[in-house]
């Protein structure tokens, strides 16, 4: 069975390591926060100016001055810090954030990512995405394996305007976990439970490397 959004987030949460500062993008990446393993201690960075993002506030305790990068009301945790936008991106650009998780419209087998613009459609802007993908050493994309028309989002080359070059390190889709490698393109690491290698192969347009037995994801 293909994963739902929560399961994609849950799988990505397994990648977290204690001590990491992590930036979670809008959409599925935000859900990762709900699945952080209990024994893992990470700090969530919100690029609008917060380290140590806590959960949503209780009803009636919302503070208009305390939001995350998705403009949602949130809370802090002990040890949280507020800072300005320049300092925030100093953290990101300077490589102090160990992991960025974000969504994508397309990923190329060289690690290029497109997630900010569709020509002839209203362009909302890249927000912090271009800074994030150009900066983080470790970038994981959370997305569906195919688009609404059933076409692969894992391509030999991006067809949409790109957000960053050769930056995506790993992809978790509803069907698979894949590593992006310079030499082998997408390397299949895991299948979603019950999903066949054949289905993944058929839905991956970019160069895909499958070696040996491909295990199912473990939850």
């Amino acid at each position: 069975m293909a994963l739902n959004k929560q399961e994609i987030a849950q799988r990505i949460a397994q990648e977290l390591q204690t001590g990491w500062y992590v930036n979670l993008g809008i959409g599925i990446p935000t859900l990762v926060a709900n699945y952080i393993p209990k024994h893992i201690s990470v700090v969530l960075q919100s690029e609008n100016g917060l380290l140590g993002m806590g959960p949503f506030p209780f009803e009636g305790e919302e503070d208009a001055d305390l939001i995350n990068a998705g403009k949602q009301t949130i809370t802090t945790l002990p040890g949280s810090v507020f800072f300005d936008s320049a300092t925030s991106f100093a953290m990101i650009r300077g490589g102090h954030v160990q992991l960025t998780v974000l969504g994508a419209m397309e990923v190329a087998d060289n690690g290029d990512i497109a997630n900010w613009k569709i020509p002839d459609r209203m362009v909302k802007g890249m927000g912090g995405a271009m800074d994030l993908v150009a900066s983080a050493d470790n970038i994981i994309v959370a997305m569906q394996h195919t688009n609404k028309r059933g076409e692969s989002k894992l391509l030999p080359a991006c067809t949409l305007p790109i957000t960053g070059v050769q930056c995506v390190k790993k992809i978790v889709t509803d069907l698979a976990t894949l590593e992006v490698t310079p030499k082998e393109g997408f390397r299949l690491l895991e299948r979603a439970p019950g999903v066949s290698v054949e289905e993944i192969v058929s839905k991956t347009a970019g160069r895909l490397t499958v070696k040996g037995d491909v295990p199912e994801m473990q939850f």
Partner: protein
Amino acid sequence: MNKVIANATEAVEGVKDGMTLMLGGFGLCGIPENCINALVHLGVSGLTCISNNAGVDDFGLGLLLQKKQIRKMISSYVGENDEFERQMLSGELEVDLIPQGSLAERCRAGGAGIPAFYTPAGFGTEVAEGKETREYNGKMHILENALTADFAMVKAWKGDTDGNLVFKATARNFNPMMAMAGKITIAEVEELVAPGELDPNFIHTPGIFVQRIFKGTDYEKRIEQRTVRPRD
């Protein structure tokens, strides 16, 4: 060194058609509400507005868009605004989209006398078109120029009469950098206090960057995405 002026109307004195303004805030958080309203009443047009976002239809910069006072927006993200979309698609409004971190750093650079700097953000994308590129540490970077403005309008939590500012929580965002980059910087504050009442060790924007300060009124502080969790 008293920089106090009476109100928002006095604050925006000297803003003229065609000027470039910086406006602090992220989404609707930490925006200079009073100054924006005063600009609407002033009726200036042809403005270039540097602001991370463009407000919503009926609040924030959306109010200036409705009156067609803005000629060009320089922003990183401009969703959530139908009038914006209409004007942009019709070509009435020019839009320059900039990566958020580059926007913040370009404002800081403008205030700090750094005319240009290299950043990896946007290399290989549309953002890099026409810009110089260079490799540093095995990674490609693009050269970005500083941004400055005729007026910068920022919103702080507390300020003293010397222009020293303190921001609250994530309402800080772009405000400190824009305060640095305005030829004239106007600060509107929720609380205006005497010099010495703010701890000198914990001031976010030193008064040297601020030329005018006033106590704002009637803050709406609209929340864009009210997300809550149930009490157990």
